[in-house]
């Protein structure tokens, strides 16, 4: 099509953005732009993707300064006077160029006790759960997270406070607090009350504004704050 896109891409070797001209196409995502550069212009460019349809959460980058899943971000949506600036996701160590090390993100997921504790075994019947019971709805509201770390990159509490578990991990913890099958309520509240816990969220709302799956980690964290507050007064489970 008409004009080439002018794309600046972060390079870790030089610690600077590098300019590329990329042919514009009708159906083009940011991931396509990055792939085009690696395939045609600079074979040493590093980035990460897997599913290419917004399911695996491994392709997130900063696009014009905003965290986004790149495989489902159409160029049209973010192009600013024909310019794009693509960098690695904020708040995570960079492995190379556009690929970050996501381990801290997942370490915190585990630290927030974002893991189900079973009370039954594979030989037991399944828990009957009414789909529109309030706890089920609350757990369900937070569950469709693809752990892409977009929210983690949007959050300045994460940037300011290395201990802070971050929106995704706490969102998962909240989903489990509402899961009637789970057996680790106390431990999870404790994990959410620790030095890196939910109280370090300053309700900046970036997590919710940027979550590509339209989840609301901000509300989940508020839920944890309320639950831990009740617990602090010894009022028990809400």
């Amino acid at each position, binding site marked *: 099509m008409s004009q080439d896109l002018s794309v600046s891409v972060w390079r870790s070797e030089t610690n600077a953005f590098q300019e590329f001209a990329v042919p514009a196409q009708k159906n083009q995502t940011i991931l396509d732009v990055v792939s085009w550069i690696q395939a045609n212009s600079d074979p040493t460019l590093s980035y990460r993707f897997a599913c290419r349809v917004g399911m695996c959460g491994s392709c997130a980058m900063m696009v014009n300064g905003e965290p986004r899943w790149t495989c489902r971000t*159409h160029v049209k949506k973010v192009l600013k006077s024909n310019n794009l600036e693509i960098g690695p996701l904020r708040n995570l160590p960079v492995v190379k160029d556009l690929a970050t090390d996501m381990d801290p993100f997942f370490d915190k997921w585990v630290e927030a006790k974002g*893991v*189900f504790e079973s009370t039954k075994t594979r030989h037991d019947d399944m828990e009957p759960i009414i789909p529109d019971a309030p706890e089920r709805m609350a757990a369900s509201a937070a569950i469709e997270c693809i752990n892409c770390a977009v929210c983690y990159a949007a959050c300045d509490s994460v940037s300011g406070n290395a201990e802070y578990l971050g929106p995704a991990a706490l969102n998962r913890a909240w989903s489990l607090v509402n899961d009637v099958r789970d057996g680790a309520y106390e431990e999870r509240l404790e994990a959410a009350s620790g030095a890196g816990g939910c109280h370090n969220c300053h309700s900046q709302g970036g997590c919710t504004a940027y979550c590509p799956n339209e989840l609301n980690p901000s509300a989940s964290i508020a839920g944890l704050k309320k639950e831990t507050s009740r617990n602090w007064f010894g009022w028990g489970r809400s």
Partner: protein
Amino acid sequence: MMTVERHDTDILILGSGGAGLFAALHAQQTAPKARITLAVKGLVGKSGCTRMVQGGYNVSLGRGDSVERHFMDTINGGKWLPNQDMAWKLCKLAVERIHELENEVGCFFDRNSDGSLHQKAFAGQTFDRTVHKGDLTGIEIISRLMEQVLSRPIDKLQEHRAIGLIPTKDGAAISGVLFIDMRTGRFRFIRAKTVLMATGGGPTMYKYHTPSGDKTMDGLAMALRAGLQLRDMEMVQFHPTGLLAGDHTRMTGTVLEEGLRGAGGELHNSHGHRFMFDYDPKGDRATRDVVSRGIYAEMRKNNISPNGGVYISMSHLGPENVRNKFPGMVKRCADSGFDLAAGKVEVVPTAHYFMGGVVVDENTRTAMEGFYVAGEDAGGAHGSNRLGGNGVANSTVYGGVAGEVMGQDVQNITALRDPDETVLEEEIVRAMRPLSNKPTLIQPLRTKLQNAMWEDVGVMRTATGLRRGALALDTIDDELMMLGVDDGNLAFNLTWHDWLNLRSLTDISKTITAAALTREDSRGAHFREDFPEAGAMETSTYTLAKRDGDSVKITQQEVDFTIVKPGETLLADGEPETLVGAAQ
């Protein structure tokens, strides 16, 4: 020569899809003292296709359904080619596995209003048995499994690409696996008492394909080199409705779900004609293979959309209605610039699943001691065609089996085995091959491969086409050996890995082509225009592929009907053939 870092472990698992993660979990439960290492080409739990499962998980949970019925559907769907013992174990253990997923792993499956699991309809089955979480079942299964694995003492090696299975000197057992640590570009050799390969196959050598980008048949190519037998290699399943958005976007080929047609979606050609009824009385709702061939036939007649496919149209169902029913699909199409609810979207058949794989027994053991295979890498459970919903059941069931079996076996293996250093050396040389050539672009050759496979070894096959394909593959192979990659910085060097991907894909493409040429009938996913008949079921054979020097030898093996013979059924007398729709 390059230096190789060496490590030891007890249980080594390749891949973190449903099979790899379940294996890690069960190995850890069975042998808590063993050292377990999970090595993945991408990130743990974020790579592979299990994550991409939309439809759901087949399992019989009573209420009129039975393991027998699920088994019969699997055998019929696979056109009598499945290894029946594997298919039986798949259907039987799926019941326990789904309970484990819900009760122990914490998966959150959709419910009926009475609190029981909701099961939906999936094509080709006589009972509505597919358990799901909305249309994002895979994310739920893998995210929950990933949490379990991450919070246990299991070592992970992420962005570690397996490039060679290294046997012992006598070749009878496995010693370990050679990797490239993709982040540093260095080689790493890991010895292990047992190794599970769960790298998930993945027919990404086709122009249009659904699987994730990290899947490039590395596993099967390694197994072939290691001298293992592969079966059903001609069996590539195409999904009829892949998104078609042009050659320049990775979105092209990704799945538009089957439910769209189920709900009344219509396929139109460029003249606005609803063509499926020209091919099958069931029209748009015919099975995957029939619809794929119908679309392919229209494409041949040149009744094509701007990008070379056909259209799926939903708008007659009312845009609001479509938006409510398929929010995920509508949003996905909108993100890539299409209006599924009110407009029409270009689609094309797309390579989706690979039924072929390593010959294993129902305990995931292979002919090589200490080496196990599970998931999409293993052949046999599906025969010539896989039922929608049996893929993730297969990977989770057999991944779990592999974990337990390895956990038990490892306790009887006292020592690590020493590698055949010459094989190790050869594999390194093989991987480094492009580094000494003059740097070139890699992508054009991948395109060439994908076009050749799509044209000649794709939805509809003929002897002439397959031979042409085989010739094309030979030249592609020769060209590949001439391509070069700059060896300046091997850390996270995707271009080097593109070359390696292409190498695995070409090796397996040749095998697919050879097997397809051998199979002179049309069964399940394999359709020969020159042999359109299915042939007698009683004398069914399946293909076996094995390395023979530098080429591949294909033989035919008679199916052993260990449980049920063609014409018979396991269903009790008087049980209706199908229970779908019976409730309505």
